């Protein structure tokens, strides 16, 4: 019964200008995606004394600092919500995004030993780097719920939208990460730009302040930053403020999808040369 065997076959050809996205093949390599993500998580806090506690310490300290300087001293408004909860709720998606963005941007360069020695769809690398942050997020999310409990805030039905917002944050990070990781292979300047970019981006996102303080006429422009939609979405889903979302969130989604599709093509095109120039 073994007279006919089917084996996969493929063609090797010079680089093309418009490669396919190769999503089917990416799916075939989903186990590798899982193992690389698992490796990153497993290895991250090895040989640290505090281990996974770092996951909680980082956002908690940010919250304390923000609460002290922005909440207490600068008296930044917080839509009537206790400032620590107000800012912590925004810090979670922000840190998820910032971490995912940084990790994915550096991921190809960090895994160059793999890229020059083994074949697999290169998209696996930045995607696994992005996914690695989700565990940290989940842990910090529990802390947020505890914090809300302490302040007596009960989330409404909108909480069901949190997963969708997390997905949006992850996709936003991946969208930008794809561009930057591919660029980073060729131009190591990117590595130095990322920290700067992330800091700048933090201030362009309503983490320490509510988006309501941004003048109405600038809102659309402001909404081009996809994290505005994500952070406002989080506050809306968990704290009930702002009252409604609407246009800015829609703009965020469109911006993310555009960047993501563009990033995928850009990545696939440059991917063909990664092993030669990394």
């Amino acid at each position: 019964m073994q007279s006919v065997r089917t084996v996969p076959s493929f063609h090797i050809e010079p680089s093309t200008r418009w490669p396919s996205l190769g999503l089917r093949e990416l799916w075939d390599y989903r186990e590798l995606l899982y193992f690389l993500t698992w490796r990153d998580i497993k290895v991250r806090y090895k040989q640290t004394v505090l281990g996974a506690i770092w996951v909680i310490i980082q956002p908690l300290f940010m919250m304390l600092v923000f609460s002290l300087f922005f909440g207490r001293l600068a008296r930044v408004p917080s839509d009537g919500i206790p400032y620590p909860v107000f800012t912590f709720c925004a810090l979670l998606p922000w840190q998820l995004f910032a971490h995912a963005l940084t990790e994915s941007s550096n991921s190809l360069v960090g895994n160059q030993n793999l890229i020059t020695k083994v074949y697999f769809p290169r998209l696996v690398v930045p995607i696994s780097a992005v996914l690695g942050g989700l565990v940290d997020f989940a842990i910090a999310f529990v802390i947020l719920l505890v914090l809300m409990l302490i302040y007596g805030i009960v989330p409404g039905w909108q909480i069901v939208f949190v997963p969708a917002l997390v997905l949006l944050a992850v996709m936003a990070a991946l969208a930008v990460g794809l561009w930057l990781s591919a660029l980073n292979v060729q131009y190591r300047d990117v590595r130095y730009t990322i920290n700067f970019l992330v800091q700048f981006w933090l201030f362009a996102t309503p983490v320490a302040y509510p988006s309501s303080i941004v003048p109405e006429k600038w809102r659309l422009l402001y909404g081009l930053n996809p994290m505005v939609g994500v952070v406002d979405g989080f506050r809306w889903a968990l704290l009930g403020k702002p009252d409604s979302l609407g246009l800015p969130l829609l703009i965020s989604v469109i911006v993310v999808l555009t960047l993501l599709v563009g990033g995928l093509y850009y990545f696939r095109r440059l991917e063909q040369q990664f092993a030669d120039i990394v």
Partner: protein
Amino acid sequence: MALFVLCVILMSNVTIRCEGLSKSYRIGASQEGYKALRDVIAEAARAPFRRFRYEARNGHENSNGHYFWALDDISFEINAGDLVGIVGRNGAGKSTLLRILSRITKPTRGRAEVHGRVGSLLEVGTGFHPELTGRENVFLNGAILGMRKSEINRKFDEIVAFAEVEKFIDTPVKRYSTGMYMRLAFGVAAHMETEILIVDEVLAVGDAQFQKKCFQRMSEIGRHGRTILFVSHNMSALRNICKQALVIDHGKLLAQGEVNHTIDHYLAQIRDDSQGDVIETRTFTVTSVEINSESSPIIKTFDPVQVKVRFVPKTVIKDPGLYVSILTMDSQRLTGLDLKDFTTTASLPPGETAELGFRIESLPLLPGSYQLEIHLKDMASGLIEIVPRTFRFEVAETEVYGGRKLDQWFGKVGLRARPLVER
């Protein structure tokens, strides 16, 4: 574009077909591998509009670029189940070929068709993480090499047994000895169930026992009807494992054929090429090193042979000395001869060609490849200079005892012998 399509292998038995594969690398400007944006801006200032051109496709017309063809118009076919050795000097393009067939890098021109899953082992232990345990690394590395989790689960015990690390399988690999690490890493790759296995010169790193184990495993894989492409400088391993060989030189395919014949041809050519090369050391210019049989054009076991070293001293050599050593291809010293033990030679003036050498009455080497290492000396000043390369030669596969062809299974050394019972 690496498009996966399910393909049914019918009458045609071809597993790998390459047509005009070529690969060029740019040398010069981006030698560092990556660019800094500053360079690009500088370049852009010099040639506006040019930087948006799609480089990989062809920057060959680029005015300031120098291109080096690592592979130049290579075409060949390999059938399912073929065991193919690839030989060639360092930098000949062997690794580039393997990288293209493994889909790590794209050819600049030409195309190839590959039917079957490819497992490539271009480096032992790619993706191993020192902090993870042996067990964890087996799964991680397996996934990186393209194995399914179920496949790794099934092979796990075999891999661990092969690596002989049962006791340490839950210890982080950073605590492993090099040997354990290498065995485990090779073990994972060696248990892939792909139709095609591509192995670069990776086994050279381990010790002899490890190499033997790996070669055995490769022969075993070969016997199961799988296709192997194997780059090595170890000619006897190639002769043992492979049935065919490809010779690559300066990016071109020079020969393809039966393994022994092709390797002999390759070695003969290397020998011819190496003559005529002048080698400079601090005190000597070595113009030629030759080893020739007195009784035939090829060297056979027990032939009388002459080793001649011609050189020009750069200063006066008061008390010249010569040491010639015969090494195996993996650089184990088999034996050596020191001229001092036989005779004293007159002082040599600078600038004049001198010739020193030995006549070996009967060369006690079994068929295979060997190399000569040469030391030139001045005993008066205690000067010893090792000629910075070795000279390869080949002892041909011929009948030795009673018409029997001996191979390297018998070892390296041939003994002139006869049975005690006379017939």
